[in-house]
């Protein structure tokens, strides 16, 4: 490859795709750096697959362009792009052996026979399938087929590996194992991964950066921590992890609930006035006796326990605030051991810094 070593591997620039009058991908701009593991996260129908197909060349954008290692490939067909795809359905060639499947891309590039044999062996070893060399892919389990698909794509050393929900057809246990496996492989080969998933946990666990999509547009791009701790919209906050929502009215650095209780706002939201939505994560909340002192760094509201569910490592407590709003607290079992029973009143505490503040505009409801 003659492309620049230090430029991005893949760039979407203002990409829009319209299907029957509806923009399925809207003005998406995204830069993917070499070696990154990016997860494209979004609910079903948000345009993730379409975005990937545009990168692979199976769909062509109505607006915008795609750069692959600095080269404009917007109108290039799939077979002239240095990207490879791992399909959700694996899409292995059923009439070829595992080795012939993996060798397919190298053969198209007229790589010498001895080199093919060597590279195929290496790729199958990478995914732990060297024993299955001569097998027909139809005799393999879902997880094994997934590995063959991975080896078949990676053996070509693509500039970017595109993965469209590659694990969603596997059962939970194998999926967990493949997540770890996929991360290991990513680190070992150093290829850039663009990974589509609708599973927020999978995205958090695997990706260097997460791209949250909603109705075809990028809602937020950031590290797992940024997305989780500082979601820029209620949609992101809700989609990634669970969230407690409170409706309040902001004035001079605090938000007032309808019963008069005060929520102190973090530095960046001090300027807000008028109706707001306050969010905080159930696992960032602690419960304390009703007469406990609220620290200067904390927010605290009174609530009545409506249910306590012991779940092993954590306990989930559902509570009702005095103005009727429902919140949930999740904490490790030892923290909650001295709680009053159902019906008792406690103080819900969380840090001011982990309080999320959003506009109360009704269009942002999810």
């Amino acid at each position, binding site marked *: 490859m003659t492309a620049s070593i230090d430029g991005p591997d893949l760039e979407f620039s203002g990409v829009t795709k319209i299907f029957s009058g509806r923009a399925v991908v809207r003005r998406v701009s995204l830069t993917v750096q070499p070696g990154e593991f990016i997860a494209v996260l979004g609910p079903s129908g948000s345009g993730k697959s379409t975005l990937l197909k545009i990168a692979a060349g199976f769909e062509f954008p109505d607006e915008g362009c795609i750069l692959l290692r600095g080269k404009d490939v917007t109108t290039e067909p799939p077979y002239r792009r240095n990207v490879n795809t791992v399909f959700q359905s694996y899409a*292995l060639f059923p009439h070829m052996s595992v080795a012939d499947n993996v060798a397919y891309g190298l053969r198209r590039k007229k790589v010498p026979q001895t080199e093919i044999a060597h590279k195929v062996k290496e790729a199958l070893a990478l995914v732990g399938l060297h024993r299955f060399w001569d097998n027909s892919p139809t005799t393999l389990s879902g997880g094994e087929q997934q590995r063959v698909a991975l080896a078949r794509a990676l053996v070509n050393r693509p500039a970017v590996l595109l993965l469209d929900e590659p694990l969603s057809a596997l059962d939970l246990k194998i999926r967990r194992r493949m997540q770890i496996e996929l991360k290991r492989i990513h680190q070992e080969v150093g290829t850039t991964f663009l990974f589509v998933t609708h599973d927020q946990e999978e995205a958090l666990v695997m990706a260097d950066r997460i791209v949250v999509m909603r109705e075809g547009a990028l809602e937020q791009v950031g590290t797992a921590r940024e997305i989780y701790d500082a979601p820029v919209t209620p949609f992101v906050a809700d989609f990634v992890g669970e969230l407690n929502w409170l409706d309040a009215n902001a004035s001079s650095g605090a938000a007032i609930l309808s019963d008069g209780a005060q929520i102190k706002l973090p530095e960046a939201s001090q300027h807000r006035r008028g109706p707001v939505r306050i969010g905080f994560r159930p696992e960032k909340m602690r419960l304390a006796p009703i007469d406990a002192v609220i620290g200067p760094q904390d927010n605290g509201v009174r609530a009545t326990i409506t249910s306590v569910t012991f779940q092993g490592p954590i306990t989930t407590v559902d509570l009702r605030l005095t103005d009727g709003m429902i919140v949930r607290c999740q904490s490790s079992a030892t923290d909650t051991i001295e709680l009053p029973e159902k019906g008792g009143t406690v103080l819900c505490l969380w840090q001011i810094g982990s309080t999320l503040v959003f506009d109360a505009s009704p269009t942002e409801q999810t």
Partner: protein
Amino acid sequence: MNATSASLSRNAVGAFGLFAVAVYFFLYAPVVTMVILSFNDSIGIGLPWGGFTTRWYRESFANTLAIGAFFNSVRLAVVVSIVSTTLGLGVALASRRIFKGKALVLNALILPLLIPGIVLAVGQITLFNVMGFLPGLWGATLLGHLVYTVPFAFLNIFPRVHRFDPNIEAAAADLGATPWVVFRTILLPQIMPGLIASLLFCFTLSFDEFTRTLFLIGSENTLPVYFWSIILTDPSPAASAIATLSVLFSLSVIGGGLLLLNLRRRKGDSDATPVGAH
């Protein structure tokens, strides 16, 4: 399941068995009779048995009219099977795309199967007449056979093409295969059984075709037409010999085809030698 219903089903099995034996008898007895009579040393077809002879075979092999009719049939059947399989494949591939009036096009292709051959033949000869198109082997008869066999070709190929996952072709394109290479290395090997079945099917349909051919062929001959003419004019055991040879030929074509199908079952990427052993 209780004893009564078990014994009932045993009776049913017995009845079906008997029925099957009867079917096989009526299927094969005429053929066996014909083969036996082709060795009969007598002047007419049928009994009495006049002793064993191979004379009728020697005579058939020396009969230039019969040989000519046979080669006409073979050549016509080869052309018909190749052309109709190609057309059938084309329509099957087109049917994967969504286009307006697709259902109509496909149904219109299948419909002639329901029209009696003789009706179509009369219609065709009338139409050809109007168009000034003379009866003959390579014009009228070829067309008549194609109208007859293309639906069968399509029906053999369509299911294979239809159930083929387009993602698999996308994967091949993704790995660097141009559309033609995708067709050659991915689609073709997997629909090959359907293509071979179609070739065999259309070959035998054309090779055996009589009704339409009789109307469309004019003064030329195919084997069935020739056979019919000698049965009418000179029914000797030579007719049985010709029929036996024709059946043998058909069987060997089908046998060869089935062998071919079995052979390619264990083959991988048709494009290259397999990746060397490890």
